[in-house]
Every structure is written in structure tokens, then in C-alpha cells.
């Protein structure tokens, strides 16, 4: 394939975005949601987690996380740039959360296995949270790149008219 064909192919791929959703970013957001659900199902199923104020707040954070992830999925689907930054923010919060409830329960679990998480469970939870965060960052970056291409393309069309 020569250079000209390559350019033309790129051009058409960009044009297709006018009529197709950003389904890759959408998919990544859904992965983040799924990982987060797996994470808290695993965490809350630990008998050491007894209802208290901190856990209540964490529950709330989880609900907000799921909600904003869902909104981000819908917005990124339509190449919305501002929501890529929201996705980065949610990812950042997800990373910070690792050092709060899971780490707290890991500490108490290391002292007494009946009072907290064992190492295996902790690793699973961390992996889930990291995947969720990475997916969100990925979704955001992809949207930024695609939206830039799409907007430049739309501008060219506009000027061409």
C-alpha cells in the first residue's frame, strides 16, 4: 500500500467516526464498572467488614463511582472531550482508594486472619481497582485522540463547504 492510499484510508476512517460511536472507550468504561463491582463484592463479602461510618462512606463512594462511570461511558461514546478529564479524575480517585479501606483491612487481617483480608483477597481487590483505573485512563486518552482527529476533520468539511 503506497503512501497516498494510506492517507486516504486514514481520512475515511476519520469520516466513519461521524457516523459510528466511540465504542472502544465505551467498552473500557464498562470494564471499569465490572471490575469495580467485582472488587466490592469481594471486599464486602469478608466477614470482618462490619457496618460502621467508614464503610458507609465507602459504599457511597462506590455508588458514585458506578454512576459517574456509567455517565462517562455514555459521554465518551459520543466523543465528548470534557468527560475524558472526568474519566481521568475518577481513575485517580480509584487509585487513592486502594490505600484506604482495603489497606486498612489488610493491616488488621495480617494481625489476625479473622479480623481482615488475607493477602490473596487483597491482591485480587487491588488488581481489580488498578484495571478499572487503567481502563478509565485508556478510555479518556482514546477519546481525546479520536475527538481531536474528528474535530479537525469536521472543521475541514465545514471550511470546504
Amino acid at each position, binding site marked *: 500500500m503506497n503512501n497516498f492510499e494510506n492517507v486516504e*484510508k486514514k481520512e*475515511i*476512517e476519520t*469520516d*466513519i467516526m*461521524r*457516523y*459510528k460511536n466511540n465504542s472502544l472507550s465505551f467498552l473500557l468504561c464498562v470494564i471499569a464498572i465490572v471490575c469495580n463491582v467485582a472488587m466490592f463484592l469481594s471486599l464486602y463479602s469478608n466477614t470482618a467488614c462490619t457496618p460502621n461510618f467508614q464503610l458507609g462512606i465507602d459504599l457511597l463512594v462506590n455508588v458514585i463511582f458506578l454512576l459517574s462511570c456509567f455517565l462517562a461511558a455514555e459521554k465518551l461514546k459520543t466523543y465528548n472531550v470534557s468527560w475524558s478529564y472526568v474519566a481521568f479524575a475518577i481513575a485517580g480517585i480509584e487509585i487513592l482508594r486502594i490505600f484506604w479501606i482495603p489497606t486498612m483491612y489488610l493491616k488488621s487481617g495480617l494481625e489476625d486472619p479473622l479480623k481482615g483480608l488475607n493477602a490473596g483477597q487483597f491482591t485480587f481487590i487491588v488488581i481489580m481497582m488498578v484495571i478499572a483505573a487503567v481502563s478509565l485512563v485508556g478510555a479518556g486518552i482514546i477519546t481525546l485522540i479520536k475527538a481531536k482527529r474528528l474535530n479537525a476533520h469536521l472543521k475541514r468539511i465545514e471550511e470546504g463547504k
Partner: protein
Amino acid sequence: MATLKLDHVKKIYDGGVVAVHDFDIDIKDGEFIVIVGPSGCGKSTTLRMIAGLEEITEGHAYVDEKEVTNLASKDRDMAMVFQNYALYAHMTIYQNMAFSLTLRKTDKIEIHKKVMAAAEILNLKDQLNKKPKQLSGGQRQRVALGRAIVRTPKIFLFDEPLSNLDAKLRVTMRREIKLLHQRLNATMIYVTHDQIEALTLADRIVVMSMGHVQQIGSPLEIYSDPNNKFVASFIGNPPMNFIDGKIISDGKKFECDDFSFELDEKRKALLKDYVGKNVILGVRPEHFQEGGDIDAVVTMSEHMGASTLFHCDVQNTHLNVKFEGWIDHADNEIIKLSLKQDLICFFDSETENRIR
């Protein structure tokens, strides 16, 4: 682009209903064929046999000289457009148009080019991100056309594609289909029960009745030179007047219950075998002229702008008479009529075939 040949095709449904008898036609590359006839005459059945959606009971079908009689529908490379559009409600217009190609795993760049080209032709570029329910009836039908176009089929088949649209839109869409045909230069077969569509669109018209092909010919041939009484009555609006009568005075005169007239030389020669026999006279409303010795009483007049239609009685014989322009005759006024003999037809009263 393709030719289609139907070789004595016949369809018998399971219950023994013979829906199509002996359909025989050679369709040229790029020809626009319209199959027309009253409801239940076997038009859709014929089209579905061509598409491969219905088995051919007897006879053969050939596309580009290659036999397709027993080929599955999907291998025939034809695209069909239905009356009820059959769009997918949950997909955008773009996805609807791309769908058949996506199914065939066509390269997405290729799909995009084809969809955009079709959207350009059909003027749908601004609608591609909408869902079908956000479009008007005419636009939806254009999407259905688009879905056929992107497949670049050998033959386009249409089954009454415009009958769900209102009268005005039908006129517009009719023109668009005509333009589409000129632009794509594709072979198209179009089924309708609307004679105006048939006359305006077709290169050749096939008139069917009760499963039989009555006549195949250009619109002008069908209109001015019908094979039999059925074709004459089906094409033309208002319809042809039919008057039962007899050839008398050694073949010099036509006489019916209520009037008679002298035949000219050509008519005498034409009817020389029918002296003393019953015939049916067929005369179109526009083939009367004022002046003559038929006294007709006007019972009602309809002004249609460019022409005026009079409902007249010659004693017990009812006639529709049409004159050019805006003409006023009061009800019950007597007008004198004669016939443009060059343009009238005679039919055998037993076989109802044209006397030629």
C-alpha cells in the same frame, strides 16, 4: 447490470392455486420493467420467484445467460425493496444502510464509501445519524432504496414501494426512482397496481390478469394498441368506454342499441370478417370530438383544469367524454359527438381479443 430471462415460468402453490401461468420474457440489460395488474393477479409471486424467495414450479430463469432456477436467494445477487421499508428501528440510518455489507464482512472502508455514495445520490447525507422513526415516509423509503443500492446488485426488484406514501410524495418518489434508474443504469423490475406509475416509469410494461400475461409492450403500445379488452380497460384514466354492437349494412356501419355511425375505409377493411357479427367498440374518453351525429345528454361535468370530463348518456348508453381545456356545458344540455376513427378499437365479443 444484467439481463434476465424467464422461460415459460409457472407457479403452483401447495394448495393447487395456479398463481402464475406461463410467464415468458427477455429483459435487457438496464431495462426498467413494470409489472402491473389488479390485486391477486400474481405480480408479487412473479417477483418473488425472480428473487428466489419462492420456488419456480415449472420453467427456467436465467441471469446473464446463467441458469438460476434453483439458486438460493442470497446467491442471486438481487436486491428487493418492499412496500413497508423493513428498516431496523434500533439502528441509525447509516447502520441500516451498511447492515447487509457488514453481514458479508465487507471491509469497513469499502462500506463507508458505498454508504456515502448512496446517501449522496438519495440526498440522505444529513440524516445518517438519525433513527428511522425520526424520518418522514419518503425519507424512509429512500433509506430502503439506499440499502438496495449499496449492495450494487445485478437486478433491483421493487414490490409496490410507493403504496404507503401519500399522493404527492408518490409523485416525487416516482421521479426519484426514474432518476435513480437513469443514474445507475441498472436492470429494474417494479411491481405496482398503479397504472400511472407503470406508464411513467417503464421502458416496457407487463400487464397481468389472473396469473396470465396479457400483454408486454412499451407504455405507448399498451396505451394505444392494447391486445385485448382487459388491457384496454386497465390502462387509461378515466377508463375506455366499451359499447356492445354489431357490424351491419354489408360492413359499412357500426350499430348499437342507441346509436350508429358509418365506418371509414380502414375500419371497413379491418372488420370485413365481422359483417353481421357482434363486436365491442372501445373508445377512450379523449377520442371523441365535438360535432357529429351522436346526440349525447350531459349528466355531469368535471373540470380538471387542463381538461374537462363529461358524463353523458346516449339514451341508455353511458359515455365518458373528455375534451381539452376548460369547457362549459350545462347539465342536460345535448352535445353532438363523433369519434376519431383512427384511434378507436374493436374487440371480438366472444374472445374479447382485439380485432387487428
